[in-house]
Each structure stands twice: as structure tokens, then as C-alpha cells.
């Protein structure tokens, strides 16, 4: 069954993963800018990373028939030094009009600090000024509930971005309600140890419905599974969900949200 993985960090994955994803039905992906597992030593390191996202990865993906798109930002784990982060933010507009660039992401919070919040607000401002979609990272584990509330408050406080153009990612049972009730889109990340399992993602869909919600792998350099989206498809089918429901969650909904950007395309006449 065809699917879109709307959050995966392919710079950390092998070419074999592209092949396996294509064989499993992946037709398009979107790759948010994120923390590389270490703090970069200069803003120029981000310039190289943004080139990798906008020039190199699309070619690797295209070799397997997968459309590659990306989001640009400085991630919250490297936002604790606001002066450094603002230098990186100044670089981003150079790349915003390159093919496949959907918007600003994954911005958000990590430990819910004042500096992280300051840089989140600066990047909300960047998205608003350039009228771009936003992909939001919510914190992990004990920090998620508080961080999600702080992020939603920051977007509302700014007031210029329609919640229907913002995807709040990594929702779980305790945050999905406040995200959807606020008019935002919700992403469920399927991780082996933290975030959601395919089983819990299916549970959440049964509890909240199929509107404004998607699934993604967020595959990266840590314990993660680039095939978790098709595994969730299988999980829903074996429970007895209809094919069209599964396709809505894994293809139709991400296509609907992402198509708000003219830079998004799945090719093949759509």
C-alpha cells in the first residue's frame, strides 16, 4: 500500500533504507532539520547541513522513486545559546525558495527552558514573515506535556499562523487532545522505546478519529525503524480497519496537510 513518511531523518539512514521503504510503498518523505547527536561548532555547519537537505538527499531519494522534501530550522536541542541560534536563523531564508523546502521545522522545545522558548518564538516569527508551514517537535518523556502546552501558547500568542498550517509532532495519549482541540494537526511518531508503538497509534486513532492526524517514523541515528509506517498500516488492517481508513492516515492526511505548500509533490500526476 502506498504511503508518505512525513518525518524521517534520511541523512542518518543508509541507501538500503531508501530501497526498503520504496519496496514497502513509500512514495514521498519529508525531512525536518534536527540535532545530529552533537552540537555543531559554528553556524556554517548548518549551512552545509541545509545544503545536504536541499541538494543531496533529494537525489538519493529520487534514485528509488521517492520524492524528498525538507524543513529548515535550528532544532531546540541547540537553542540554549540564543546568540548562536540567531546566527543560524539568519541563514535559513537563503534556502527557503529551493525546490522541496516546505517550511520551518522541526522547531519546538526540548527541556522547556527560557532560551529554547525565545528561539522558538523567533522561528515562529520567521515562518509567519515568510508564510510557511510549520512542523513542531514536542519534548520527550516527562517534558512532553508541559512543553506541548508552552508551544501551543507561543503559537497562539504570536497569532499570525493558522493552526491548520501547523503540525504538532510526537503526540501521545496525554497530548493529542489539546493539539486537535486547538485546531492544529497532530503527528504520531512510531518509536520502539519512546513515543508511540504502532499498536498505541492505532488505539489513539480509534479514540480521536482520523481527522488532522498522521503517523511517521522519525527514523534517525538512534533506535528507530524506517518501516514503522507500513508496520502501523498492517497493525490497523489486522484489527479490522478498512483499507480507506488506513490509507487516509498514512497517505491522504499527510498529502492534504503538506499540499498547503506549493513545494510539495508526490509526482506521477499526484
Amino acid at each position: 500500500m502506498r504511503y508518505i513518511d512525513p518525518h524521517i531523518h534520511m541523512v542518518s539512514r543508509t541507501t538500503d533504507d531508501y530501497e526498503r521503504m520504496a519496496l514497502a510503498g513509500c512514495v514521498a518523505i519529508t525531512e525536518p532539520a534536527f540535532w545530529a547527536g552533537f552540537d555543531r561548532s559554528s553556524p556554517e555547519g548548518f549551512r552545509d547541513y541545509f545544503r545536504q537537505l536541499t541538494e543531496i538527499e533529494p537525489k538519493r531519494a529520487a534514485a528509488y522513486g521517492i520524492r524528498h522534501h525538507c524543513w529548515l530550522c535550528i532544532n531546540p536541542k541547540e537553542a540554549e545559546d540564543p546568540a548562536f541560534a540567531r546566527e543560524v536563523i539568519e541563514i535559513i531564508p537563503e534556502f527557503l525558495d529551493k525546490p522541496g523546502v516546505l517550511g520551518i521545522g522541526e522547531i519546538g522545545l526540548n527541556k522547556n527552558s527560557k532560551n529554547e522558548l525565545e528561539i522558538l518564538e523567533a522561528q515562529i516569527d520567521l515562518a509567519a514573515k515568510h508564510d510557511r508551514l510549520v512542523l513542531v517537535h514536542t519534548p520527550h518523556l516527562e517534558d512532553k506535556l508541559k512543553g506541548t502546552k508552552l508551544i501551543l501558547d507561543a503559537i497562539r500568542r504570536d497569532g499570525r499562523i493558522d493552526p491548520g498550517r501547523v503540525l504538532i509532532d510526537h503526540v501521545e495519549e496525554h497530548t493529542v487532545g489539546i493539539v486537535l482541540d486547538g485546531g492544529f494537526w497532530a503527528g504520531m511518531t512510531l518509536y520502539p522505546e519512546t513515543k508511540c508503538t504502532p499498536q498505541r497509534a492505532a488505539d489513539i486513532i480509534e479514540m480521536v478519529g482520523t481527522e488532522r492526524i498522521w503517523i511517521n517514523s522519525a527514523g534517525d541515528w538512534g533506535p528507530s525503524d524506517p518501516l514503522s509506517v507500513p508496520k502501523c498500516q498492517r497493525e490497523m488492517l489486522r484489527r479490522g480497519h478498512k483499507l480507506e481508513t488506513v490509507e487516509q492516515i498514512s497517505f491522504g492526511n499527510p498529502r492534504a496537510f503538506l499540499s498547503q505548500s506549493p513545494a510539495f509533490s508526490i509526482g506521477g500526476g499526484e
Partner: protein
Amino acid sequence: MGDGVIPADKKRVLDLYFLEHRAKVLDVAAFLDRYDRAAGDDHDPRMLALRKTIEVLQGDTPDRAKRVLELLSDVTAEPIESAPAKGATGAPEPGTAEWD
């Protein structure tokens, strides 16, 4: 959809998931035994939080997963002064939990 109804009936749910979750319960039991056998003091906030969540599992509320996550959450509202590290422990620090 959205009403909490799962297409599979109870027997199908057991057929699909019983063995998997039997194993997970055993893992938790063995972990608690392992922890008790280990040397050291017993004041780690992670264990206090875990024991609180086990109480939820024994109840019959329809939103156990949500309640477990809430119990494992920092429930304060204000941003902290600065980030002490990048990682998270999985349980709220003393003074930030629902029961503090």
C-alpha cells in the same frame, strides 16, 4: 472512528495481543525483583513514579495510558531558567510531579 470502538472483538484482541502482554507483565515483575535485589538506597524518583503508574493499571478507568503518561509528566507550567542537559529521565523531578 473516534468513538473508542475497535473493529476487533475481545477474543480477537486477546488472540492478537495476549502473549505479547503476558511477556511484558513478566518483564515488569522481573524488573521489580531485580531492583529489589540490587544494593543501594530506594529513593529514586523514577521508582516512585513507576509504582504510582502500577496503581493505575489495577484500576478500571478507560484512559489508563493517558493517566500513566500524566503521572510520568512534569506538571509545572513555567519555563525553567536553563536546560541542565539535553536528555530526559522518563519521570518527573522531585517537586514537579502531580503528587508533590
